[in-house]
């Protein structure tokens, strides 16, 4: 038998393998080796990602470092995205000319609204490019499909470039000013109703209603130009939705309010989650029923029934790992999907590499690295240029 210290040491050594692979992936997808300031920016971002993954891996505090990544990714995404828009079409606003030219980036939130129509009639009810564009329809669909198979609803905590806003605002306050830990069932399932409503109305009107009327993130991506009363009204809704759902409610409740209550893509991913490889499991025998996981869960995915009966959170779980980090009994862990009982961690330190607690953050972080690397280094470059007075 190996002593505990020796086991820990071997475990540390074994973990160098995923770390090395991740460093290779970060280098490959992030580093721009021969391009002056862009090279420096890419190295800064690459090192930042390496540090985060190393901390995630060796401290076992996955949720904390994922959160740091997620918030910084959201903040770094928007400047570059907006600059890309300005470079492509001369402005951030979405005009009718851009729609005619199909210059509208295809965002993942549109997927549930368009995918049924696409499956039935092979047409997309959104004015985006089919391929060749940085946010084309096929490109976004393939990324979504790959991510869904691996992560399911985990998209919302590892890949989504909007979620970081709420994650950030929900962490601004130390205590909850509005407690919705045990919300009424209607509130918990509201986003499913929202999804159904949007799919039906979009199907009938052949239009992406969510983008036209409800998206809170228009304010930080591309707003429609105000040309008439309709666009004026829509803009008011966008502003209210952003401040209400993304700033105020997360700040008061310390929950990702828009993601868990409002976002149709989140509801869609909860359904898609059935095909994903991973989920979160609760060892009901080990659990001390303290209820801390309910309080900490940012997406209202924990209930008493989860740790008393079912042994796993609701399908709306985004696999962020907050409950895993906070559970002092160590009863919650990442697991493979469709397993009836919580998995017991192997005592063999070599087998740790094949455990979901290593494989899920590893797989999810690869998506995070690749998707964020298209934007974040450019934002760092911009910041460097701004600091050196290069931007006028």
């Amino acid at each position, binding site marked *: 038998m190996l002593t505990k210290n020796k086991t820990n040491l071997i475990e540390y050594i074994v973990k160098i393998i995923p770390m090395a692979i991740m460093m290779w992936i970060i280098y*490959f997808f992030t580093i721009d080796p021969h391009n002056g300031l862009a090279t420096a920016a890419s190295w800064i971002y690459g090192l930042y990602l390496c540090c985060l993954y190393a901390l995630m891996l060796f401290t076992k505090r996955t949720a904390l470092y994922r959160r740091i990544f997620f918030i910084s990714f959201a903040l770094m995404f928007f400047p570059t995205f907006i600059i890309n828009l300005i470079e492509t079409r001369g402005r951030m606003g979405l005009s009718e000319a851009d729609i005619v*030219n*199909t210059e509208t980036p295809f965002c993942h939130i549109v997927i549930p609204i368009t995918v049924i129509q696409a499956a039935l009639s092979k047409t997309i*009810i959104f004015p985006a490019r*089919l391929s060749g*564009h940085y946010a084309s329809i*096929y490109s976004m669909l393939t990324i979504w499909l790959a991510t869904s198979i691996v992560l399911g609803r985990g998209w919302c905590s590892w890949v989504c470039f909007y979620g970081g806003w709420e994650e950030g605002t929900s962490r601004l306050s130390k205590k909850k000013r509005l407690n919705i830990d045990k919300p009424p069932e209607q509130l918990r399932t509201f986003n499913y109703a929202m999804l159904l409503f949007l799919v039906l109305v979009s199907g009938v009107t052949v239009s992406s209603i969510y983008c036209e009327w409800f998206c809170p993130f228009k304010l930080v991506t591309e707003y429609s130009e105000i040309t008439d009363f309709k666009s004026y009204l829509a803009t008011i809704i966008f502003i209210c939705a952003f401040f209400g759902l993304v700033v105020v409610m997360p700040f008061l409740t310390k929950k990702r309010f828009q993601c868990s209550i409002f976002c149709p893509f989140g509801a869609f991913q909860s359904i898609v989650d059935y095909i994903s490889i991973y989920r979160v499991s609760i060892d009901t025998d080990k659990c001390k029923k303290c209820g801390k996981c309910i309080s900490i869960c940012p997406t209202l995915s924990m209930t008493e029934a989860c740790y008393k009966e079912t042994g796993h959170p609701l399908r709306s779980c985004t696999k962020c790992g907050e409950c895993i980090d906070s559970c002092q009994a160590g009863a919650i862990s990442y697991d493979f999907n469709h397993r009836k009982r919580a998995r017991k961690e192997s005592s063999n330190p070599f087998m740790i590499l094949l455990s979901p607690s290593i494989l899920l953050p590893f797989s999810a972080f690869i998506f995070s690295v690749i998707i964020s690397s298209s934007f974040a280094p450019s934002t760092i470059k911009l910041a460097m240029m701004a600091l050196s007075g290069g931007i006028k």
Partner: protein
Amino acid sequence: MKKVRNIITVLLAVVAAASIPYFFINQESIISYLQRVFPLKVDERYTGGDISAEFIDPYGDDNGDGSLSYPAYEQWSTEGTLDLLKFTIHKPVTDGKWTSLRVFQQLDLCLAGFSNPLSGAAGFSNPVINIYIDIDGSAGGSTKTAKSRAELVSFSPLAPWDFVVSINGFSQKADLSSFDGSYHSSVMVYSSPSENSIYIRLPLEKNGLLPIMDGRKVSYYVVVGAYSQLAQGNFMNIKTRGSSRLRPRVFDYLSPDGVDQHKMLSSWNETSRSYAELKPVTWDPAQSESNSIANEELEKLKNLAEKELQSQPSKKLGEISQENLKGTALLIEYFNYSYFKEAESEADKILSEEPENAIALAYKGSITAMNGGKASSVIDSVNLVQKAYEIFDKTEEVAVTDEEKLTLYMNRGNVSKSIPESVFLKSLSGAKDFERAAQIFQTMDGENSSKAASALINAGECYIRAGKNTAAEVCFIKASSISSLSAADRYKLALRGFIQTAPSN
């Protein structure tokens, strides 16, 4: 059983994790496969409707009756800004989305060149375009231009126009009016500089254009002039020495099949003081013919292309060595006959003596990128391709002569075309390189025009990879207007529908 299931799950998870980077590296191939097995299209209510007809106008005929040339001012330096290449008619849309119009018909105009030197509000400033529409045959309408003494042309009495749309780049709204002045409205003008295109959407609800919805025969006259704010109808006055006062102020005109533009625009009559009479292009949905090339013609072109490929000479290494070639000539010979190792050592030899030899640098860049393709690890591959672009950048700094620039553009273009787009995003710059190369080829004599065509086809293929389909079409139309095409290029253009027949001999 449970153990087997667990092993399969773990295996699946490991394979999934390992596959993610490969998924992103090969995303382009996955997308092109998906496009084949599950073809999608954007709903026509957003894009302007399915295409009902496309009329191609020859490239390089922006000289009116054959005697016009662009004004000499700097603002007119971009070539082809008055050269109409394609006129597209869409099917009417009855429930437009994300647009202020519910019922409309979209018309697209694609030009050979696009520029906005005078900052026109609609995104272009050189052309003024009038589209005259006849919806009722000879029943009613006008054979005179909308503004007298504007274009200096007249229209066929068999198809007098009923409506005219007057477009210029200085307003985002074009004028739509009826021949008798009873209806006047404005039409939104959209442009896409990256696609060399202007789009207009005709409102069909509240005017006499509604009959277009019936699917009836409609005729169009599209005339392009040089914009001048002060001129009559904005068609710039053309003054050449000894020029007739009846010479049309039209640089390009969408002539129907079998009609010579030069002849038609020269058909004014000094004696009777009558203007040149234009014939329209007509779209008759009842007699719509497939524009695609017949299978037997395509087969013929394919055979010719294969024959051409087989007749390509090949040389053995020894033969090249015996030719007493030296320096860049030897390097090019090695490269052209696919002796890349020898080409690389020759390039290195030249560069050790002349580090700034642009031709050797350009070939060195290509060979470095090729080595990237053969590298054992992906990381080496990417590094070598990046290095190749560094070499190309250096080449750009030192290339002075046309030959050096051409070598750079062709080498860099070919590399950009062959590397994965999802990793390097170089298709657009590749297209630009090929276009620049085509321009240089066109200034040369003899066989080089067929090389220009090849470069244009490559540019078009790069544009398609970058999702710029209209820009690609512009290249294909330009290429198809070149008479001395190789069989392979003719076949490529025929496959895309830009050439209808095989050469007779």
